[in-house]
């Protein structure tokens, strides 16, 4: 009895630790986001300030012949405008005379051509006067140049001290804002850390008293499949299959068409209820769960996320919102909070949108972020599905034929991405694939099955050398 209560307490504690950790990461991300916003606002204000100073000095600068940045920029802009305008006028003239020439008889053409020349010359003259006027506007005043120069220097010095003062003010204000935000957030985060610590100590104290609840699974095993069997009517799709997937490896499941690979995935993610067999998953370093006990929509919360053999996206939503759909379990705001769009919901959205943007950037999908996925190339859609799995920081990603329909370059890119994902987050990757090149290239361990039965398990080299595997594949072909 006491043991059961202890077990219950430890379970509750672990659950609480999980939520606290989620809240902590949320707050940290939010803090980073808010600080970033403050910095951007600061940069913008500074830019505006500098621009204003430049504008206010412009007239004196011109007169003193000390072109500052603003003056030269303005001069170049107007020059460009002027040239464009005259180019258009020239083209309009040319077009008019072309039409006129087409209309008249050949004897009058010489006359028209002469007219055209005159018109062109007149236009040229007007252009040069306009250019001269422009240059005059931006030319320094010849008389009292020295006086003007000193006046400008004075004004500039004053403006610069002014500017420095204003910039200081801006910095001070933004620093204050930063401090305020950080102080508030850090206080919250520290509070969470304290209760985390307390809970961790409590669980540590309790844990020694409890019998180990890891079902005798070695530390380095992430997923253990034991005697898995799945039947559809009379057909045995998976037949007494057992294997281990180790932490942090890229594990490949191969087999001819209809071997039962997708069925294995569907059993792990609980779309099917296996006829027999147990599936264990190491949810965190200390806790192992039996996947058999969880409903299908809770699998993602345990740290397993999958893709489908045929792309399954939300076609009405832009790509980035598709990623947010995948972050569904990370939202903590309840329905009524969503109904009135509370501040908390907005903050959560902002944080998760940032995360989605980062993931899209990592996979090179940023240009597609705001497009509707409908009609995008197949390779991109596959990548979006992969991006979606990354939203929840899973411990294991299950990929069902990620390279199907990709060309060679895309497949190589995919291999690189799969490795990056594994290396960056220590995520274990479990994939089914028919492209042997990819499988042999990226996988650390491969399991080959045929008609639901295990043929061989080992490194790519061992699998390639295995007789049973060769027979299964050759027999099929």
């Amino acid at each position: 009895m006491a043991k059961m209560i202890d077990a219950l307490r430890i379970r509750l504690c672990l659950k609480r630790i999980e939520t606290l950790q989620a809240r902590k990461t949320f707050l940290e991300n939010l803090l980073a986001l808010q600080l970033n916003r403050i910095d951007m606002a600061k940069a913008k204000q500074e830019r505006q300030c500098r621009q204003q100073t430049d504008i206010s000095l412009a007239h004196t600068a011109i007169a003193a012949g000390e072109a500052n940045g603003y003056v030269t920029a303005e001069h170049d802009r107007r020059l460009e405008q002027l040239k464009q305008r005259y180019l258009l006028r020239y083209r309009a003239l040319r077009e008019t005379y072309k039409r006129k020439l087409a209309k008249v008889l050949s004897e009058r053409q010489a006359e028209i051509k002469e007219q055209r020349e005159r018109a062109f010359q007149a236009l040229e003259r007007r252009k040069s006067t306009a250019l001269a006027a422009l240059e005059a506007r931006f030319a320094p005043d010849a008389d009292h140049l020295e006086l003007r120069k000193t006046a400008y220097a004075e004004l500039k010095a004053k403006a610069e001290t002014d500017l420095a003062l204003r910039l200081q003010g801006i910095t001070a204000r933004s620093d204050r804002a930063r401090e305020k935000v950080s102080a508030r957030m850090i206080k919250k985060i520290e509070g969470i850390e304290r209760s985390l610590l307390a809970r961790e100590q409590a669980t540590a104290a309790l844990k020694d008293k409890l019998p180990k609840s890891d079902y005798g699974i070695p530390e380095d095993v992430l997923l253990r499949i034991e005697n898995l069997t799945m039947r559809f009517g009379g057909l045995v799709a998976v037949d007494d299959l057992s294997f281990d997937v180790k932490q942090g490896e890229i594990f490949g499941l191969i087999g001819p068409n209809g071997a039962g690979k997708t069925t294995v995935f569907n059993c792990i993610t609980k779309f099917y209820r296996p006829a027999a067999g147990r599936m264990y998953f190491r949810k965190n370093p200390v806790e192992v769960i039996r996947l058999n006990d969880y409903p299908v929509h809770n699998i993602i919360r345990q740290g397993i996320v999958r893709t489908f053999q045929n792309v399954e996206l939300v076609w009405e939503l832009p790509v980035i919102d598709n990623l947010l759909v995948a972050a569904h379990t990370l939202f903590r705001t309840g329905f009524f909070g969503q109904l009135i769009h509370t501040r908390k919901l907005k903050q959560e959205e902002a944080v998760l949108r940032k995360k989605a943007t980062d993931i899209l950037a990592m996979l090179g999908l940023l240009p597609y972020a705001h497009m509707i996925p409908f009609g995008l190339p197949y390779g991109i859609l596959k990548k979006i599905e992969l991006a979606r799995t990354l939203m929840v920081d899973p411990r294991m990603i299950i990929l069902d034929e990620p390279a199907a329909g990709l060309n060679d370059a895309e497949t190589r890119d995919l291999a690189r991405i799969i490795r990056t994902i594994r290396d960056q987050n220590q995520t274990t990757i479990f994939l089914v694939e028919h492209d042997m090149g990819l499988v042999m290239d990226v996988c650390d361990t491969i399991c080959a099955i045929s008609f639901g039965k295990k043929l061989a398990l080992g490194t790519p080299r061992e699998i390639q050398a295995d007789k049973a595997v060769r027979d299964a594949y050759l027999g099929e072909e």
Partner: protein
Amino acid sequence: MLKLRTLLREWGKNLNLIIKHPYFGFVVFGALLLVVLLLRMGGLVQIGVVNAVVLTMIYSIIALGFSLLLGFGGLASLGTAGLVGLGTFVMGYFSGILNWPLLPTLALAFGIAIVVGLIVGFISLRIEGMYLAIITLGLAEILRAFFISYDKFTGGFSGRSFRNFTIFNQPVSTEAVYVTITVVFVLAMIATINIIKSPTGRALLAMKNSDSAAQSLGISLMKYRLLAFIISTVFAVLGGILYIMYIKFSYAPQWNLAFSLEILAAVIVGGAQSIFGIILGVFLIYGLNLAVLNNIPFFVQNPALIVIFNGALIVLVVMFYPGGLIRLIQTSHFKLKLFLQKLKHRMKVRRYGEDD
């Protein structure tokens, strides 16, 4: 001078933010509808127009709930009418006859709505598509039979009028009811857009696209199906409550399949995923004949043609614009822009010749 300019620019930016805000359109729309009331009080518009506006608002609320179910959740239901009828009778009987205060009456009505939503939601977990639609139709027919036979409450086949509504012990004028309906309408639009643009709305869409993908992403079918049905039943009952407060008369046989189908048609004609599209659809189905067609002598002489006109409209829209009329407006806007661009280019070429 410079300062003033930057100030104006800042202000312009803020204004832009306000205009771009999704609520802005709704609030302005609500304000325009209130202007209709002012015009009526000034005797400038006919009562038919006001009735058309009010009915469009009430039915739009119902259609908004329905669109969350159909357009986002992908769930079919033909039981809308029963719930609207329920709203009218509960509000009418308890508030209008028994003089219950407002809040308990509302609590009762919404409580019933939620229970019905839960029942249908649970059924939807087992039965899908057409069969689900037929079951909801059956439930609505049971409700209708119930209204007709319990004539003590509902007046049965002769209908019943409910006149003496009081809100917080004050008798309510028609104008006050109009304002209330407008406010509730705007709030319903805001609530709908908030749901659409939140994790719930995305979850509903994910469910509509693929049950299995949604589940693999942690979306519980049970939770969101129940939620979708509850939202739509609550909106339907709300519509019924507002209806009885304005029309003050409810006729049991009126809440039949035809009514549910008209709501369905309105949502499809307008465009199931756009709020203004739905309102447009409702106006075309319900408001148009009241406000416009009934004033055209030709249609007044041949009332049957109004029905034919509506039917033809639905057929045409469904055939040529499966995305709803709002899609037509959006694409024609886009096309107009494209056309103007081309025109500009053509003029330029004409004047200046081809680009060098």
